[in-house]
């Protein structure tokens, strides 16, 4: 599975944006059949999405489809039409408990079998958008191993569910974000953050992205192409951190070749967790094609 740092919502409304998904600077696009589509256009959006998945060259950009929720009349038809097109993942709104995650797993499994697709091909990113959903994050994250590969926080709907207003500093989402990340890490799956909705505030987007990276999120949704590069750049490590990580990874590789477990770098003991952190930093630099990692 590829990178998911920036995930751009693209409404399946008109073909113009759909056929240019490869050129938006996004690691992945979320082809939307849900909130951005009017009730009377759900059929057209679903069919347009199918043809786009079958015909458009996404050039390696991840293809996620946000289907309509399990409590809607559109949900079953969305999955029946979209799963055979093998998107990388389905983003399922308003998952509230393990039963919801298991239900979508069983439904997708049946469709994959019918279509002759290996079971488990299409992953699920479960959206936690209510207080109940967030509090059940651990159960959702562990409900369908191999199928649910990410949980994401839906900040706007969560704020509405809690009867609160979102703020720039995001204090009201701090517990939810922290809890979702912990649940995801516990289940060894990814955690994705909610979009930053003020399109004119680039610095605010940069600050918020760096903050959620610090919390442990693997990616963040975007609602405009201009947000993608800002998000990707925020994931790239600073040079000082990167150089230190490269030194650690070099030392660890040399030690491994000589059969040594614990090593010392610049007089400090370096053990397995430190090496893993350094490798994660290098991976983020690699994702951003930083030249410093070329020698590794």
């Amino acid at each position, binding site marked *: 599975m590829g990178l998911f740092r920036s995930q751009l919502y693209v409404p399946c409304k*008109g*073909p*113009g944006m759909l*056929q240019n998904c490869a050129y938006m600077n996004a690691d992945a696009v979320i082809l939307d059949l849900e909130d951005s589509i009017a009730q009377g256009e759900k*059929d*057209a959006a679903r*069919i*347009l999405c*199918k*043809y*786009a998945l*079958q*015909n*458009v060259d996404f050039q390696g950009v991840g293809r996620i489809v946000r289907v309509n929720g399990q409590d809607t009349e559109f949900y079953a038809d969305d999955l029946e039409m979209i799963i055979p097109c093998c998107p990388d993942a389905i983003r399922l709104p308003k998952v509230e408990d393990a039963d919801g995650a298991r239900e979508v797993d069983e439904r997708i499994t049946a469709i994959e079998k019918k279509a002759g697709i290996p079971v488990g091909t299409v992953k699920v990113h479960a959206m936690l958008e209510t207080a109940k959903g967030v509090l059940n994050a651990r159960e959702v994250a562990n409900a369908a191993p191999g199928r649910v590969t990410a949980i994401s926080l839906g900040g706007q709907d969560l704020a509405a569910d809690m009867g609160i207003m979102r703020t720039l500093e995001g204090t009201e989402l701090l517990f939810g974000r922290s809890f979702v990340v912990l649940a995801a890490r516990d289940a060894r799956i990814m955690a994705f953050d909610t979009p930053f909705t003020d399109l004119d505030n680039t610095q605010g987007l940069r600050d918020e992205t760096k903050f959620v990276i610090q919390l442990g999120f693997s990616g963040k949704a975007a609602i405009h192409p201009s947000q993608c590069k800002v998000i990707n750049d925020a994931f790239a490590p600073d040079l000082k951190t990167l150089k230190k990580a490269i030194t650690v990874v070099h030392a660890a590789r040399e030690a491994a070749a000589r059969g040594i477990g614990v090593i010392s770098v610049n007089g400090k003991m370096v053990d397995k967790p430190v090496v893993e952190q350094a490798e994660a930093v290098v991976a983020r630099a690699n994702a951003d094609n930083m030249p410093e990692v070329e020698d590794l």
Partner: protein
Amino acid sequence: MKILHKAVAGSLESSDVLISVEPADEGLSINIESVVLKQWGARIRQVVEESMQAAGVSQARVDVRDHGALECTLKARIETVLLRAGR
């Protein structure tokens, strides 16, 4: 498939196509307006005819207003309009 009532799908936005289908007493009539009619008019007609044939539609009036849609978009809009118009 029988066309039961008039239906429309798509839009007049760039890269899209607006297609309407309505019942007809006899035969299939296809009217095409396109910004790329000279280059792609014949192909658009062929796609519409093949799609109608595949769906078993032999009697209908089809109006196509193309604003530079890719073939996959044209096929998507035809599938939608037939879903809405027929049985």
